[in-house]
């Protein structure tokens, strides 16, 4: 196998995010190695073949590099999910707090109060789970990060659903309320979508992680 063919095969087998650096390093390495073999008397073609053989099986090298990439990508995806869960405070609290007029009731209806508490509890649970997932990604138990992130995703989705019920109830109790959910809803959906993408990404790499 020539150096170019080896590099093309290595590039094809690597995750897109790891390709650039690895291929440049492998190319330089193989060129040095081939030069050493030529200096030892081999023909250019034989020197390339020897360099490729010394570098090792493309399957094994690509697999080990993919494992390293998986560790990094799992850390990034859990941090992205944690960021999305943290940002959920904007549609859950910041937007309604800053756009709603004073409440039209002297005492908050009990069902609205309960829905608020449940929604916040789900959100806090999602935050705790996302934090645990991000922490796991830095340990030898990084393989567990994806399932814990799934639990965080379920919790944040639960928070959104309860918040939607809260909005409906709020409108029923105070029909003159401005249309603030038009701003909060897309933000909440965005948080869930980012969380879901990060979870899916961490699962794609989980089979490469050990421990």
């Amino acid at each position: 196998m020539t150096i170019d063919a080896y590099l093309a095969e290595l590039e094809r087998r690597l995750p897109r995010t790891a390709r650039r650096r690895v291929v440049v390093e492998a190319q330089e390495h193989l060129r040095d190695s081939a030069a050493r073999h030529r200096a030892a008397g081999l023909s250019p073609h034989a020197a390339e073949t020897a360099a490729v053989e010394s570098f090792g099986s493309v399957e094994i090298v690509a697999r080990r590099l993919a494992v390293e990439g998986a560790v990094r990508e799992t850390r990034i995806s859990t941090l992205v999910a944690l960021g999305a869960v943290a940002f959920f405070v904007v549609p859950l609290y910041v937007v309604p707090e800053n756009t709603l007029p004073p409440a039209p009731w002297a005492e908050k209806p009990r069902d609205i109060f309960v829905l608020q508490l449940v929604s916040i509890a789900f959100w806090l649970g999602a935050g705790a789970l996302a934090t645990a997932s991000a922490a796991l990604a830095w340990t030898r138990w990084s393989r567990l990060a994806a399932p814990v992130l799934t639990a965080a995703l379920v919790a944040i989705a639960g928070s959104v659903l309860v918040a939607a019920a809260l909005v409906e109830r709020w409108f029923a109790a105070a029909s003159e309320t401005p249309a603030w959910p038009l701003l909060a809803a897309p933000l909440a959906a965005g948080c869930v979508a980012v969380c879901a993408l990060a979870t899916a990404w961490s699962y794609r790499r989980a089979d490469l992680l050990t421990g």
Partner: protein
Amino acid sequence: MRDALKGHVDLLLLSALEDEPAHGYELVETIRDRSEGEFDLAEGTVYPSLYRLERRRLVASGWETVSGRRRRVYRLTTSGRRKLLKERSDWRAFAQAMEAVVT
């Protein structure tokens, strides 16, 4: 010999980086030369090990232009140097004990 090296590649790489920064091929050459050809690593597997050491902040790396070619050059960090001293001490104790048992 390659199988026997499994588990020791990190120590070999840290040792090879002790004196001066080097790129991947130089590290393979250093290990091969110091072992007088006995340690003939599957050269491509050095890179995942280097990336792992970098992730653990035991080595740091950066692109440099050497003789007109773009190279990723690795260097020991302070933590890496501490780790090397510890691993070397552990290895000497292990080798002494093995020597005492098998000879």
